[in-house]
């Protein structure tokens, strides 16, 4: 019988039945092993379980294995693995010290590339966890739409991060130093990501300045101008009216005049007969009365005929007169049409310098297009990062669930308190200073607006920029921007379709204030002053180019002030004034006035020629109607004469009748007186009062 040399410690001591059952038998979980354990233990004198001493080698080995397993089953932790974990953590710390910067660089670049959809580089990133300092020498982010340019570039920078807040998921940097921030810089290699969609071509946009020109008022074009407005002129209508009137008169008047002449001719014999009556030779009343009655009948006949002839002739005369009067309207129509055409010339040339504002508009348009491109990208990124809110209605299920964002009660998820940048000193003539305050992902938690100040002094040039971003409020302007620049070297070249700004140069001062409200509307005012300017514009119209160059040369300074309103990437309102505008306006106005005078003279000539042609065509008609008018007048006079003759004769006969009647009465009265006196003489005389005897009148 072999005695086991290394009995497991667990099984060396005698065990009570309770301990044996609980710790040994129930420590194994297979039926045959439990049975086996029951067989390898025996009860001693004190009724305790003790391992049998007569176990075979095989049984002993099995007991040892089971004891190991029972021991292994104790506890819930795997201490060996925990030790290994500690080792791994140590290794991770070492790895972190050695490789964390490379890992962070890659992670940062991937995050930026995801956000900006273009290639990004972070150089010399260094993270020091104990001090919470992160620094890098440069970050470049390519422009998705222009792969060979950077959207922005940041130079050497350092950030002090609050590590405790970082563990809470908050990025809180109380101070930040960022140097050499630049936008729209060139890249050596393409910034397009593999598989990215093709970039939009900004040159594909149509130019707003196509078709700019100054009105050309060549005298040779007067006829075309006249024909262009022909339908609106009154002269053609008047000519047509005159022609109709004259034609109608020339056609109708002769027939009617002839009929009246014939009627007067028929009366002429009667009138002659009446005129031939020798009134003084009528010596008795009966003849006179007979003559009077004959004349009266004749007069009535003549009166009736003459009245009708007079009426007809008067009408003919008026008609002829009207036809002649329309002829005079031609002159009025010419005057009226010339006024109309002159006004049209004025419309065309009312604002000869408006195209200058179009050039300014296009320049600003390009600047705003860039500005709004940045804004649109920011909105896209913000929309992509947007999450749910605790109070909002139940969000529909979507893969990955919905993040309910709880407010940060201490710090925002991202916060940078004071960020300042400065280079050199003011005395050295090379100085740059910038300050950013209160940049955060939750400005309402911070309760302060984000502000930025930037001042640059270099080679006598000075720039100052103040910006305020009011994200901590729900109302009011979203952003306010003020910029002032002095002694700026201006050397501007630009091209807009057919018009190109070849040169606008000279030291300039520029100041602008701009506000962006919450519906995306930009309102701003800009003042520019260019000293000793050189201004060359190629509009395709040589005279304009010359006038503008002369105007710029005449002026010591060009000043300009603009008020603009922009929505989206378009300028919706632009008003402004420039001193150059005044000079150019004067030059253009003189030029246009000269052209206009020549054009007007030629236009007058054309109109007069048009009228003269009409006059020469209608002259025979006019003369004929005038002659008819004269004839009608003559016939009317004739009718008047006939009527006068008859009326005179009738009056004379009437007077003669009266004379003869008076004479007959006198004679009758004398005869009666004589007869009375004779009778009185024959009568006795006594007692008769001679005064009482009636007397004949």
């Amino acid at each position, binding site marked *: 019988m072999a005695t086991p040399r290394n009995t497991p410690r667990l099984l060396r001591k005698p065990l009570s039945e309770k301990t044996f059952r609980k710790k040994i038998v129930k*420590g*194994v*979980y*297979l*039926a*045959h*092993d439990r049975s086996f354990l029951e067989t390898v233990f025996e009860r001693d004198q004190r009724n305790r379980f003790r391992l049998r001493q007569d176990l075979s080698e095989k049984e002993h080995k*099995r007991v040892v*294995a*089971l004891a190991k*397993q*029972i021991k*292994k*089953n104790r*506890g*819930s*932790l*795997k201490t060996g*693995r*925990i030790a290994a*974990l500690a080792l791994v953590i140590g290794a991770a710390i070492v790895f972190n010290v050695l490789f964390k910067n490379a890992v962070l660089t890659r992670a940062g670049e991937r995050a930026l590339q995801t956000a900006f959809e273009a290639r990004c580089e972070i150089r010399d990133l260094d993270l020091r966890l104990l001090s919470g300092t992160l620094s890098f020498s440069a970050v470049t982010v390519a422009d998705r739409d222009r792969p060979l340019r950077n959207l922005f570039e940041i130079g050497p920078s350092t950030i002090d991060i609050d590590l*405790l807040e970082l*563990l*809470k*998921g908050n990025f809180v940097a109380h101070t930040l130093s960022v140097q050499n921030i630049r936008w729209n810089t060139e890249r050596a290699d393409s910034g397009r990501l593999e598989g990215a969609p093709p970039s939009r071509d900004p040159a594909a946009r149509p130019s707003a300045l196509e078709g700019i020109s100054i009105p050309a008022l060549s005298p040779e074009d007067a006829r075309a101008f006249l024909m262009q407005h022909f339908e609106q002129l009154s002269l053609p209508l008047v000519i047509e009216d005159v022609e109709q009137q004259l034609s109608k008169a020339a056609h109708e008047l002769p027939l009617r005049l002839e009929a009246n002449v014939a009627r007067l001719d028929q009366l002429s014999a009667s009138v002659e007969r009446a005129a031939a009556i020798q009134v003084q030779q009528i010596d008795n009343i009966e003849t006179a009365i007979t003559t009077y009655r004959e004349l009266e009948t004749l007069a009535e006949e003549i009166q009736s005929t003459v009245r009708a002839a007079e009426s007809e002739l008067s009408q003919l005369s008026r008609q002829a007169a009207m036809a002649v009067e329309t002829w005079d309207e031609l002159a009025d129509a010419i005057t009226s049409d010339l006024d109309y055409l002159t006004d049209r010339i004025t419309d065309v040339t009312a604002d000869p310098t408006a195209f200058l504002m179009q050039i300014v508009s296009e320049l600003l348009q390009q600047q705003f297009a860039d500005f709004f491109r940045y804004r649109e990208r920011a909105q896209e990124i913000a929309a992509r990062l947007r999450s749910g809110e*605790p*109070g909002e209605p*139940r*969000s529909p*299920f979507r*893969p*990955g*669930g*919905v*993040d*309910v*964002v*709880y*407010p*940060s*009660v*201490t710090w925002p998820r991202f916060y940078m308190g004071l960020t300042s940048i400065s280079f050199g000193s003011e005395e050295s003539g090379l100085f740059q200073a910038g300050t950013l305050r209160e940049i955060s992902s939750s400005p309402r938690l911070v309760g302060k607006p984000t502000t930025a100040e930037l001042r640059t002094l270099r080679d006598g040039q000075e720039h100052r920029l103040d910006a305020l971003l009011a994200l901590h409020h729900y109302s009011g302007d979203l952003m306010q921007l003020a910029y002032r620049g002095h002694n700026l070297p201006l050397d501007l070249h630009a091209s807009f379709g057919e018009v190109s700004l070849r040169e606008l140069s000279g030291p300039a001062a520029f100041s602008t204030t701009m506000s962006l409200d919450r519906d995306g509307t930009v309102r701003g005012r800009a003042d520019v002053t260019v000293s000793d300017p050189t201004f060359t514009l190629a509009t395709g119209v040589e005279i304009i180019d010359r006038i503008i160059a002369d105007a710029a040369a005449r002026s010591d300074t060009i000043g300009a002030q603009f008020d603009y309103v922009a929505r989206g990437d378009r300028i919706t309102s632009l008003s402004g004034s420039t001193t150059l505008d005044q000079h150019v306006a004067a030059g253009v106005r003189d030029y246009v006035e000269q052209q206009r005078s020549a054009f007007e003279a030629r236009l007058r000539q054309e109109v007069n020629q048009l009228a003269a042609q009409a006059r020469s065509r209608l002259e025979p008609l006019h003369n004929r109607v005038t002659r008819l008018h004269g004839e009608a007048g003559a016939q009317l006079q004739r009718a008047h004469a006939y009527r006068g003759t008859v009326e005179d004769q009738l009056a004379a006969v009437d007077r003669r009748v009266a004379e003869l009647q008076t004479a007959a009465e006198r004679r009758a009265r004398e005869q009666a007186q004589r007869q009375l006196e004779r009778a009185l003489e024959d009568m006795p005389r006594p007692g008769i009062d001679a005064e009482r005897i009636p007397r004949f009148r």
Partner: protein
Amino acid sequence: MIGWIAKIIAGLYSNRKPAEVAAALSTALLLTFLPGANLLWLTIFVAMFFLRVNHAVALLALALLAPFSAAADPLLHNLGHTILTHPALADFFTALYNQPLMPFTRFNNTLVMGGLLAGAIVWFPVFLLSRAAVMTFRLHLVPALASSKPVRALVKLPLVARLTGATRHWAAVYQALR
């Protein structure tokens, strides 16, 4: 492959604690409910390797259950959203959200919260049931099967012989099948 299957069989039928298999199954179910890529899932998964949990069984269960997890997502989303947006819990969650490392657990995600809650609720019942099942399997089912004639005939087949050979160093299995 055979060795891997043998390990799983050995895990099921050995003298190791049945609680290891039970914990593996219930933890795998919890991990199935939880979406990945957050500190909470990672913590539970890593912790599993430092506790007495049968990893082979856990990984197998995880692999088998994962395809069905998406089916439960809408329910988990609703559950999580209800909890996360409950007004009475808003202050608690806000305070929790502002504790170090907690945002990285993504507990504020509706699926994470729903999965965590559902997993926590079912963990203990699943643990008890699976432990009892393992005990029954080891103490009653396997001995009964091993002593049956069909199984004895099956053991003599070459493939099964290889399988038993692979598990030979787990004496219990070997002995049970021998």
